[in-house]
């Protein structure tokens, strides 16, 4: 029983990590209908920012996530201005390809600048700490990420649902031209949403180096899983992607233990297929 609970716990914690990564993606997707293939690379960049701040200036990730998040916000904003803004409304695949090119560019730029070395902050406030809860073990860095993830999702959700700017975002997502006719500067909204999507994944990336090494390839699998979570939840649905992420985390953990570790992602991908077969628009899609 303990084992079962422990596995469930690990699954949930990992799921929360996926949730915050997926959040940024679902925002961008929902509002702009653009597939950001470089999302995983945004995560990687955030991890590098956090790593270098920790390494060079001894700033703990617990603090420096703010910087990572701001940095990726700016990076995403610039990406939007230079690249994506030219592709909104163009054939859907072109944005996908451009961001694919961007992911290749960013990955190899980091490889070139920072070498392919695995970089890990040896000592941070959180790293390696665990909290025993009864017979269960809670890993502190993962717990902190999960808490952040919940908080950020909640804030973003409230922001979208009940602020003026949030309404403007919703309006833009539903009908860009009509939103413009309401006096909403949709260019600005798009830039903001792309930046916000980056900022969310920036927070995740800022905290990850507390237990995960950074290297140029680190974002790839996260990016892929985020895609699955977003699609499984239903594109553009924040609650959907949260639930899907948790489900993915749990399925990964249980399949990894009860079937075989090698099959854990197979189970996740199969889960996606099963869910969309039953609900072709995802769990919360419309």
């Amino acid at each position, binding site marked *: 029983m303990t084992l079962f609970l422990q596995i469930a716990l690990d699954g949930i914690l990992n799921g929360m990590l996926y949730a915050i990564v997926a959040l940024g993606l679902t925002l961008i997707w929902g509002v702009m209908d653009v597939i950001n293939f470089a999302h995983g690379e945004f995560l990687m960049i955030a991890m590098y920012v956090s790593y270098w701040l920790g390494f060079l200036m001894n700033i703990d990730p617990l603090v420096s996530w703010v910087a990572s998040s701001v940095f990726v916000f700016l990076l995403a904003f610039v990406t939007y201005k230079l690249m994506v803004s030219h592709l909104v409304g163009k054939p859907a695949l072109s944005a996908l390809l451009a961001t694919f090119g961007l992911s290749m560019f960013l990955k190899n730029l980091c490889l070139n600048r920072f070498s392919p070395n695995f970089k890990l902050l040896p000592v941070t406030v959180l790293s390696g700490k665990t909290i025993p809860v009864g017979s269960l073990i809670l890993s502190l860095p993962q717990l902190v990420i999960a808490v952040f993830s919940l908080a950020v999702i909640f804030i973003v959700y409230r922001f979208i649902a009940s602020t*003026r700017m949030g*309404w*403007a975002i*919703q*309006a833009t997502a*539903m*009908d860009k*031209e*009509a*939103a*413009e*006719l*309401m*006096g*909403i*500067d*949709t260019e600005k909204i798009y830039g903001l949403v792309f930046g916000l999507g980056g900022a969310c994944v920036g927070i995740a990336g800022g905290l990850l180096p507390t237990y995960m090494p950074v290297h140029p390839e680190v974002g790839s699998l996260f990016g892929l899983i985020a895609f699955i979570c977003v699609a499984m939840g239903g594109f553009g649905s924040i609650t959907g992607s949260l639930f899907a992420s948790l489900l993915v985390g749990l399925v990964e953990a249980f399949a990894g233990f009860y079937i075989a570790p090698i099959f854990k992602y197979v189970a996740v991908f199969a889960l996606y297929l099963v869910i969309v077969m039953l609900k072709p628009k995802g769990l919360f899609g*419309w």
Partner: protein
Amino acid sequence: MADPILKVTDVCAGYGGVPVLHGISLEVCEGELVAIVGANGAGKTTTMRTIAGLMRPTRGSVEFYEEDVTGLPAHVMVKKGLTYVPEGRRLFQKLSVRENLELGAFTERNRDVIEERLARVYDLFPILKERSDQKAETMSGGEQQMLAIARGLMSAPKLILLDELSLGLQPSLVERVLRAVTEIRRFNVTVLMVEQRVLEALEIADRGYVIQSGRVVMSGPSGQLLNSEEVKRAYLGI
């Protein structure tokens, strides 16, 4: 005649390099209700979109209150007091009636002013008050069209552009919607409308412009147009 608040001079525009407008010129004065009529594909909607800032003209100029606003984007035009209610309503279907209306007043930050405008709009269209928490998509076609007009009014425009209000509406509703148009003049708004129901449009308008293949072919007070043999033959099907 008073000084025109909107002055469109020799505007050309088109989609993807295919020209639709070949030099449209028109004027709207304070307090008027002006109708643009014409056949399908004559360029009525393109004219409206160009004025509203959704399209850039390739030539010509648009002046609003004696300021050159040619090519300014739509969201800036709204702030300047020109609102466009587009063809096909374009409501935010998943949002409630009230949220739609509030978005209409997006440029206004003062809560009190927004409440006041809401009250006036509800006064004009009581049905919207009844349905204020309903999602826009659940309303009938006529109610949706009311909502679209009301949403346009929420920005307290000086000039409102109404595009093809009657499209796809049942006859009895056409009547109601067009009546609503005459009523919104109580808001001290000037109205420029496009309508394919020529007869009904000219009945309520002060003046009219007839557009054909991207050019203004006729203009004048609506009574005069209604009596013109040409209009009768080409547009009224009489």
